[in-house]
């Protein structure tokens, strides 16, 4: 009996410790302009994707003379509590990011029709009128990466290591191949899928698959595995092939082995969508691509940023020029990149 009490006591203490570390927030001074509250699905930490969401939120508040706050969530249970706390404060816009929050966003936007929400990088099937989704056209950036591979590949064989065989992720792999083949139609493409129990966070499995693709002769391999990408970059260093990253600039993870990245500029999306919501001009779903500056590659950034990026593409100014030209072509509609999600 005594033992059981002790065990219970320890459990209670551990639970309290976890709870205490779960809450947290950053606050800014009150102001006259619009107010925004950014709720993250996970702690921001060094997660650049979530950090960009905060940068965008802050920029809107600063430009319009408003106020902003961030509620960082740490686990499943405090996500809901944080969003509800944000709703209680009734700001002009509640900013939510990533697929992790899609169900909560759907449920809580329908339960609070007077509160305006924006959700970045995901959207429920039938969003309520007060929920505005901002999604990316990832295939456009992937196509630009393909153009780089088309110019750089010596073996004329490229490949992608992709987390799952689902239409959404073919936006990366298929468009990468299309971009390369637009430069040289003879380039062959191999796509493999990580699969298994934990496709988005199994670097060991991803590394073996990248090695298998490299053994077939591919010298440019696109890493579309989120948390598994580190294994693919290790394989790149080991076997000497070149790789491509996703979402943020991953070049510093393996300098000299990553050509460029398919960027999602969350800050641009948050900023533009939040302003539209505040103006009352936002539609239910807004898709951001190269034209809106919502997606991109490092090669499109300023020359100084490019020089500091540690990306291989910085050493190839001629290809950077070709990529910028192709971007203009896509923006103007001269080049149409098909969307595998709806094709």
């Amino acid at each position, binding site marked *: 009996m005594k033992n059981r009490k002790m065990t219970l006591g320890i459990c209670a203490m551990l639970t309290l410790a976890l709870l205490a570390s779960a809450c947290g927030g950053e606050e800014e001074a009150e102001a006259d302009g619009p107010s925004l509250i950014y709720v993250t699905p996970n702690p921001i930490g060094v997660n650049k994707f979530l950090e960009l969401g905060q940068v965008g939120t802050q920029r809107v508040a600063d430009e319009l003379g408003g106020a902003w706050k961030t509620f960082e969530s740490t686990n499943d249970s405090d996500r809901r509590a944080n969003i509800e706390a944000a709703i209680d404060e009734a700001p002009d816009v509640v900013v939510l990011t990533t697929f992790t929050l899609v169900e909560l966003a759907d449920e809580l936007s329908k339960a609070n029709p007077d509160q305006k929400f924006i959700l970045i990088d995901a959207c429920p099937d039938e969003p309520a009128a007060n929920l505005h989704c901002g999604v990316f056209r990832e295939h456009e950036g992937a196509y630009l990466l393909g153009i780089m591979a088309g110019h750089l590949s010596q073996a004329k064989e490229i490949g992608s290591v992709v987390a799952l065989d689902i239409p959404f992720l073919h936006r990366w792999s298929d468009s990468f191949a299309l971009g390369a083949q637009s430069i040289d139609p003879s380039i062959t493409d191999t796509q493999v899928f990580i699969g298994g129990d934990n496709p988005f966070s199994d*670097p060991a499995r991803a590394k073996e698959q990248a090695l298998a693709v490299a053994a077939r002769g591919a010298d440019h391999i696109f890493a579309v595995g989120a948390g598994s990408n580190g294994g693919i970059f290790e394989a790149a260093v080991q076997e000497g092939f070149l790789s491509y990253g996703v979402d943020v600039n991953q070049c510093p993870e393996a300098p000299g082995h990553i050509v460029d990245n398919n960027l999602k500029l969350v800050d641009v999306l948050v900023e533009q969508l939040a302003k539209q919501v505040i103006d009352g001009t936002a539609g239910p779903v807004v898709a951001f691509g190269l034209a809106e500056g919502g997606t991109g590659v490092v090669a499109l950034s300023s020359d100084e940023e490019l020089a500091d990026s540690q990306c291989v593409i910085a050493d190839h100014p001629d290809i950077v020029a070709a990529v910028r030209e192709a971007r203009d072509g896509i923006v103007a509609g001269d080049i149409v990149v098909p969307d595998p999600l709806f094709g």
Partner: protein
Amino acid sequence: MFEQIFDTALFDSATRAMIPILLAALGGMICERAGVFQIALEGIMLAGAFAAVAGSYLALSSGVGVIFGMAAGMLIALALAYGTVTRRGDSIVLGIALNLLAMGLTGFLLPQLFDVRGVFQHPRIDGLDRIAIPGLSQIPWVGPVLFDNTIPTYLALLLVPALWVFLFRSPIGLRLRGVGERPLAAETLGVSPTVYKYGAVLASGALAGMAGAQLSLGNVVQFAENMSSGRGWVAVVAVMLGRAHPVGVVGACALFALAEALGFRFQGNGLPVQITDALPFVVTLIALVVARKRFARLLDLTTAG
């Protein structure tokens, strides 16, 4: 096409896939023999992978990392041993609880200790070096695959015959099996089941912890949340399919790993991922059913002898 698939890189890949599973399965096998159903291998492997990366990062040494990994594994195993042996709890319930604990705890400690989330990769993390054995590593085909490898790999391969001798040819092994099969008889003869069961569970913790270290410092040099990704469960199945016999267990692990590595290659040739994902399980099951008759006879011989 044949040469393109069956090259040394394939067997290299299969060996890397096999070692973590084999180390954990050998630990599970010892427990099975001592009469403890060890189902916490997945969590122990994950905790081992995390502690190994943490130890290697702090001490700048992969050796310290492996020791950290084994210590973390033994710590979780100690909880299992206390719960199942001393407190006579249900090993399945406790095992599942410990798996969940390891997943939560590593996910919680990662941002607390290293200020990152999801993946921890850092130049300070010292990976396990491949150490070539002079002479043996020169043998074509076999040499570069088996004799140019990490220390946990050599240990895993040496443990297969060593554990066979231990279980079937040593007095301690006999008593351990006695504790598992006839605990009352063993106790009557003055053999303490508690001591043997504690020893078996702690050994499995050390081995599965080392499996995690091989995964996070050998196969790759980084930690990713929940990176054991079901390998511990495969080890549990390998113990059952191999009937807790070293030859059966290593056979199940090797077949599984080879089928997995082959699957990666076949994917490149257009085989759908849904099939290559299932391939290791299907191949291992079929092979063991086919080999069962022969294997059962071998088992009777060794256990009788």
